[in-house]
């Protein structure tokens, strides 16, 4: 259990590291969020151990490195994580490629719209328009690619 926690913690660190060192170098960190993807994958795989704690740590690290008030992105990540777990547990008992696509689209829309509204309210440069569309499309594209890659392991009914 503890081993699994530390392994997941390393993955969270790696996601933050990729966000702020690799993606930011090419200017694509505003379009894509690796931590979002990791939380999404864990929830899809129903791997809920320490998920809130890891989301909290990841969110805090994100806030720390992006010059936004500490805790602001953490709250968004936690709410998103909770909402996604609720949907996964109550409405998506068996996972198929189509339900995954639906969940992916709904969650990315929810996450990026809520995040930008929250940032606008806090005056932290929330952005709408074409950017939000690129964010949603890019994240969905990565999820579809990953789903196709691990199709046999993921889906039972397909």
């Amino acid at each position, binding site marked *: 259990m503890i081993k699994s926690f530390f392994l997941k913690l390393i993955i969270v660190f790696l996601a933050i590291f990729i966000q702020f060192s690799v993606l930011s*170098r090419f200017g694509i960190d505003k379009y894509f969020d690796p931590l979002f993807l990791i939380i999404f994958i864990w929830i899809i795989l129903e791997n809920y151990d320490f998920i809130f704690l890891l989301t909290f740590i990841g969110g*805090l690290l994100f806030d720390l*490195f992006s*010059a936004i008030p500490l805790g602001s992105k953490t709250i968004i990540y*936690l709410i998103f994580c*909770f909402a996604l777990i609720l949907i996964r547990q109550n409405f998506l008992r068996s996972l198929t490629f189509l339900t995954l696509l639906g969940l992916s689209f709904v969650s990315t829309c929810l996450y990026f719209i809520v995040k930008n509204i929250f940032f606008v309210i806090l005056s932290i440069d929330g952005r709408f328009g074409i950017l939000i569309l690129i964010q949603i499309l890019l994240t969905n594209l990565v999820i579809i690619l990953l789903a196709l890659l691990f199709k046999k392991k993921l889906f039972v009914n397909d």
Partner: protein
Amino acid sequence: MIQKISQKKNFFVFLSLIIISILIFALDQSAFLNSFKSFLFSGAKPILSLSDKNLYILTKPFEILINYQKNKDELTSLMQKKLDLTSIQVEIDEIRRENDFLRKALGLKEQKKQDFFIAKVIGRSSEANQSVIVNVGKGDGLTGSETMILPDKFLIGKVTDTYESISQAKLLNSSDFSVSVMGEKTRTDALCTGAGDSLEIEIINYQDQPEIGEIFITSGIDGYSPGLIVGQLEKIIVKPSAVSRIGVLKPLVNLNQFEQVLLLKND
């Protein structure tokens, strides 16, 4: 039964963490958590420095490939500009010599030279507010009011938060960055603010007629050193209902790809 207990436990954890996050958010508004942030940054600094050094080697070839055509065109135009500048340089040298001679003759004192720090970028973010993390902090003498520039006087941002060994700086294109600017040729006064990938200037005086392609520099009336290059005017948007005109400035440097910066101490 076990599943219900587990769900209850998870909900309790979620609720506790949300409360902690809100508490952290509230405390952060009053700079109460600065020592905590400083501690976290101290731990992160070696990792960030190491990663940045290695990543530079790894990502440089891709950057060259992506920017090949752009760099080729830029090189051609720069070669032409270099030729033009050589003759200007000769004139400037001549004026400088004459200026020195006149200063000595009139007994004028040399202008006080500005103190600066050389800093290395060890982290960056453009997801929310465009910002960078640099490897100097309070321990090195930073006060938190420094202007961040590139060599050749290109303004790129300002330091917003300083911690013991690290500082955060907001970039020029961040939405909450503003600086008073003026046109280099027409002396048009305006207020420049960040707008994501570009910059916006608000021209209030209708008598001012800035030219497209004009370079805008800091005017120095709001604490920034005067004469720092901010950007080049791309277009002017005139809205019939608005009191002022909006100009779009293009930064002359790539705000995603710099490794070292100068931090000027503001008087």
